[in-house]
């Protein structure tokens, strides 16, 4: 279980919900659960977003462990110049 923060373009799947409590032990499991609850959202979180966990940007972090105290933000992909 973790607290998941979604961006505006994700919220069309969740009926406007911004912050959700989601079951799972890893970021990948959170995405699976979100896809189960909101079909179509999962691919956006897997391919179209980076993940910040407790303030630290994690690239490709689907296997990162989470627990009840974890704050997970799905943010837009960031690269650079």
């Amino acid at each position, binding site marked *: 279980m973790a607290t998941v923060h979604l961006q505006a*373009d994700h919220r069309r799947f969740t009926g406007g919900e911004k912050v959700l409590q989601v079951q799972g032990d890893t970021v990948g499991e959170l995405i699976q659960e979100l896809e189960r609850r909101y079909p179509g959202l999962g691919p956006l979180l897997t391919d179209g977003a980076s993940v910040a966990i407790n*303030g630290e*940007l994690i*690239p*490709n972090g689907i296997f990162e462990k989470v627990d009840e105290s974890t704050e997970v933000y799905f*943010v837009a992909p960031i*690269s*650079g*110049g």
Partner: protein
Amino acid sequence: MTVTENPRRYKYVGTRPVRHDGLDKVTGKARFAADLDMTGQLRGAFVRSPHAHARIVSIDTSRAEAMPGVKAVVTGDDFADLDPTHPEFDMAVNLMARGEALYNGHVVAAVAAVTASQAAAAAAAVEVEYEPLPAVLTIDEAIAVSAPIANPTNRTLFSGDTEPSNLASVNEFGRGDVEAGFEAADIILEREFRTVAVHQGYIEPHACVADCGQDGKATIWASSQGHFAVRSKTAAALGWSTDRIKVIPAEIGGGFGGKTTIYLEPVAVLLSQKAARPVKIVMSREEVLRATGPAPATKITAKIGATNDGEITTLQSTMYFDNGSTKGFSALTGAMSVASYKLPNLQLHAIGTVSNTARSAAYRAPSAPQAAFAVETLIDELAQRLNMDPIDIRLQNAVVEGDATAMGAPHPKIGFVETLEAIKNSEHYNSPVPEGAGRGVGTGFWFNIGEQSSATVNLNEDGTATVITGSPDIGGSRASMALMAAEELGLAVDRITPIIADTESVGFTDITEGSRATFATGMAVVNACRELIGQLKQRAATIKNVDVEQVEWVDGAAVIEGQDPLTIPEITAMAKNTGGPLTATASLNAAGAGPSFAVHVADVVVDEETGETTILRYTAAQDAGTAIHPSYVEGQIQGGSVQGIGWALNEEYIYDSDGVMENASFLDYRMPVASDLPMIDAIIVEVPNPSHPYGVRGVGETGIVPPIPTLANAIAAATGVRMTSLPMSPPRLLAAISGNAGS
């Protein structure tokens, strides 16, 4: 100079040795892609669209193929037919048009011939029949009701829409209640800002040599910011597997984001395959400016509210970024970069548009300078209206660790306050403003990224070391890798040789972008060195016949109580007796890149008869976390500042009404040169990043963010005119001062 006390001190890290590649580069010995020549090599040339938007009715290559010296011709039909949802679709279509030419200069065919002049003549002989289509050249044209579609394959990112659109992406994010924020404000300011496309301006034009063998495999020598990406993008464009392509990195003469994508390599490979000879392609400067990625033009409206005591209560902004001919994330990135202030109420609309202009590419802290122009100008005006010091109002609202970024996630440990204080305490800021001049302040933020890197460290038989990575050296990273290895191993930095290896000689490494090389690749080097120290201790234990637990590694030597230390040369000399060569490899996907903040101050005078701005003094402070090689950190700060100054004062893509760039040369595209500039005084602030073993934050990008608002604010102080469109060139500034336009 360094102003913030970094509690950690090192023997090698933080020193300023001559870079390992320096002598070759200053004597002309370093080999860039255009310097490479191979036996039997052909020269490639492109056929480019003269139209901003046109359907390609037919291409007849027969006359060109019959010309002297011509060995191969390729068109879009020779390339892989990627699905538009493929992540490399836009890149592939950009390097060779399929069906439609999407901008003036879009490649529609290419030829290879024995000489460059023969190739150029044959390219001119390729007969292309076009059906011109309506072109979209600006943001306003793209979003107009009933606008023609600029690119029929574009679908709006994040929208779920399936119909063609001129919107590349649409995002909205924020927090709190902006209307309540405006109600709580004593002062509200709102302005619209415009910027035009500008180029990265790297000295070295794009160049490559490709040699396709009879085994169906190709070797590419290329200048790029990431040769593994050259491999994967070339493979995607050709529909090949990556094992068929080997990329050998040439030296790179500047990239600044513009060489994170490719334009030449798949074309050169196909020409080489057809001709069965190596093919070299070198872009002209005109081609670089006309057809490689500029930074996006923008239209940004921003509205800010604050109380009379300087507390910012709310910010609302709509940001349009023109991606050029294909979709992209530029608008989103620009909005996300609004991350420097505690904004309890925030609403950002980020809208990317598509037009029939060259496909935009990353440019140093992509999209952040345009966004900072808007936000930092308004904050400066707030300070002015509230009679506050421009740094004090920023200090009052500055984010610290735990405060929310634009996307909501909290900032990690950052040094914005320390960087503001570095300028506030600087001699420059505390000196009187010269008579007739104006002083301006601006700030900038960039995320920085981690991503994947690999490194191998070999200890040679005489105790010297070779550090092998896959990150092209675009800003002194060889030196920084060697310094971190020196610190870890306890070896003098001149006994370490840093090497950048090809795609078959080192583990996968992502592009040098996002100011990541010293951070992420540096961490891989550190990890490899630590693995190597474990091996050194084991070998020392074998030599001394003790348990390895009795061995400590101290200042480059294995120390065992009661015995003489064993140095690295002493251990490597006996390597064959203790288990063979000493080598270690590490790879990682780095998390925890530390964001970097910059604060600049400038004094300018404006000639009110000509509109010319002269910068009298310029000081730039930036948080580097820990400066591994301070000279190259200063170089990054100065380089970013200069590029931002050019963007602010002179640079612009000028298109005619048909979408043809009218100033595609360095004579007419006016970048600053040394005589235009004062010394850029660089102040390195060190607030170590706790996620890196030496505290590194990337430094390559943030420096370009503050100059535009810094100079706009200085010009406002000098003239009383608030410039809200770029460039602030003499004719535009003169018109604004005269009350005719621009402010």
